[in-house]
């Protein structure tokens, strides 16, 4: 396998919050040292619940939010050091598709104008040829050419998501951040869009950073999986390794919480107590310690934060990742 297309190291993003006149500012630790790589034509799934920092991490990679620390290299280019011109060139190769199919299209622009935007910005085609390119892109995502003249509100959620994909493809990128691309869609439509994403990856050789919360969805598309909790990656590895031999207790809990449409295959349901710790006051030890059900958990968990380290073929951030154990009943 060739070297990675995207290399992210120790990415940090904090948001200052409530800097009132008389209140001391607090800081939300959204992303706290995330490292990951994505190889050409590969899909890395970044999985976590709301507040885990997965969305912020995805946007920081594209500098839609400016990271506070860390490095991002894309095809050997230092993304965070890029000046305006270099950044514009990078944007042709790194794209994003958003979760909300309603907010992600400008309601005042025709679908054709939205899809043409990248082509215009980067002058990828002479004016008279733009229309033909837009129609070709719409065709590639399974929409009629006539869609170009309509407005977003005239389309269903699934169709809008296709339009958002066509817009991202307009600049012919190599890498796309997919930020929960199917979470807002109905099940039957979700399958259509996932299939489309798989086809596009095959036909165009795309790399994906697939941000999601649903492990069953992730399983269909990802080659590797990184599980995030509280701003950090807690487990990272090959898809089957993570799904079949989860080593972090949080990964186990996430897996058991996936609603499976099969009453016969009743797995043991782990119901995690409580909520993640407050994002403004990180605990000193393992952030999962307060909800953990690992039989070997001890005082070290609350006192000392586990680093992400190799355990078998995976990377795991748990002091007790080696001990094998049955999920409690």
């Amino acid at each position: 396998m060739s070297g990675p297309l995207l290399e992210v190291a120790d990415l940090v993003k904090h948001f200052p919050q409530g800097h009132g006149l008389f209140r001391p500012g607090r800081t939300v630790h959204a992303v706290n040292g995330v490292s990951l790589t994505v190889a050409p034509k590969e899909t890395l799934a970044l999985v976590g619940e709301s507040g885990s920092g997965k969305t912020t991490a995805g946007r920081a990679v594209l500098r839609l939010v400016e990271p506070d620390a860390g490095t991002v290299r894309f095809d050997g280019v230092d993304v965070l050091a890029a000046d305006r011109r270099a950044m514009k060139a990078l944007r042709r190769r790194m794209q994003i598709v958003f979760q909300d199919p309603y907010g992600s299209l400008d309601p005042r622009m025709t679908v054709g104008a939205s899809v043409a935007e990248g082509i215009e910005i980067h002058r990828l085609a002479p004016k008279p040829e733009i229309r033909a390119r837009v129609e070709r892109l719409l065709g590639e995502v399974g929409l009629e050419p006539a869609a170009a003249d309509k407005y977003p509100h005239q389309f269903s959620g699934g169709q809008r998501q296709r339009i958002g994909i066509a817009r991202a493809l307009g600049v012919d990128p190599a890498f796309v951040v997919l930020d929960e691309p199917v979470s807002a869609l109905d099940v039957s439509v979700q399958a259509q869009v996932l299939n489309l994403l798989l086809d596009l990856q095959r036909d165009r050789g795309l790399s994906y950073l697939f941000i999601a919360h649903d492990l069953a969805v992730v399983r269909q598309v990802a080659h590797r999986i990184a599980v995030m909790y509280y701003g950090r990656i807690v487990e990272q590895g090959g898809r089957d390794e993570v799904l079949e031999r989860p080593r972090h207790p949080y990964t186990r809990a996430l897996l058991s919480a996936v609603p499976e449409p099969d009453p016969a295959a009743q797995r043991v349901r782990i119901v995690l107590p409580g909520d993640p710790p407050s994002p403004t006051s990180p605990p000193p030890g393992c952030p999962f310690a307060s909800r953990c059900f690992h039989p070997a958990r001890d005082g070290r968990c609350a006192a000392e934060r586990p680093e992400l380290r190799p355990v078998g073929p995976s990377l795991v951030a748990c002091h007790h990742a080696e001990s094998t154990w049955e999920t409690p009943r």
Partner: protein
Amino acid sequence: MIGSLRGTLTAAWRNPSGRSGLVVLGALIAFALVGPIVLPDPTRIPELGQGATGPSLSHWFGTDHFGRDLLARLATGARISLAIAAIAVALSLSIGTAVGIIAGSFGGAVDRILMRIVDAALALPRLFILLLLLAVWERIPIPALVAVIGATGWFGTSRLVRGEVLRLKHEGFVQAAVALGAGRTRTIFRHLLPNVAGVILVSATLSMGDVILLEAGLSYLGVGIQPPTPSWGVMVFDARNSFTTAPWTLFFPGALVVVTVLATGLVSDALRAAFDPRSA
């Protein structure tokens, strides 16, 4: 921008209340354009001054206490009041929109400084600032009056626009444009401005009414338009001594102010709906 100006107006016309507003505004503008040409000189005081007379066949809306034809004065007043309002509002909207968009899209120190200035300006009553200025500058020419009204009316608009921009900045379509490599200019003109147009329109009609009333108020206080030039405000001012004996001298200019403000409100509602492509 959705469609053409014509398309937007057509859509507003289809809306019944928008249509009635447009009809009234159109009639007022026609009255302001044509009235002064066909009606007698509004400033001429007849030599045989008969004082204020009620509506009659020769003076449909009656005369004021100098015996001047009220209809003619209303027509010339419409020209002045509507022109002042339109130009002053256009001026204040432009400044307010520019400041709001700059503050919202740049953020950081630029935003903080601009918004502190706006806060300070909003804390002072506009009428007070205007009175102060006009006290210093006696017999102010009309263009300067318009400029002063316009320059003191943009604070609220800038706040509204900034708030919208802050919200829009985090919408997927603006983020997508940035991710596609759109610069600030493109983001502002392609995405932000068209999407705040609705807010600006509402703000425009609110200020339209405000400015007509403000000009009337200033003129009433004797520091705006100077007699004998009629504006609706001046006419209300002139009626202050005669309205008990000749109520029509107060009623007609007052009614026109109210009707204009109401009609702009109706048109604004219809335009706002027409601007929303979801309503098409």
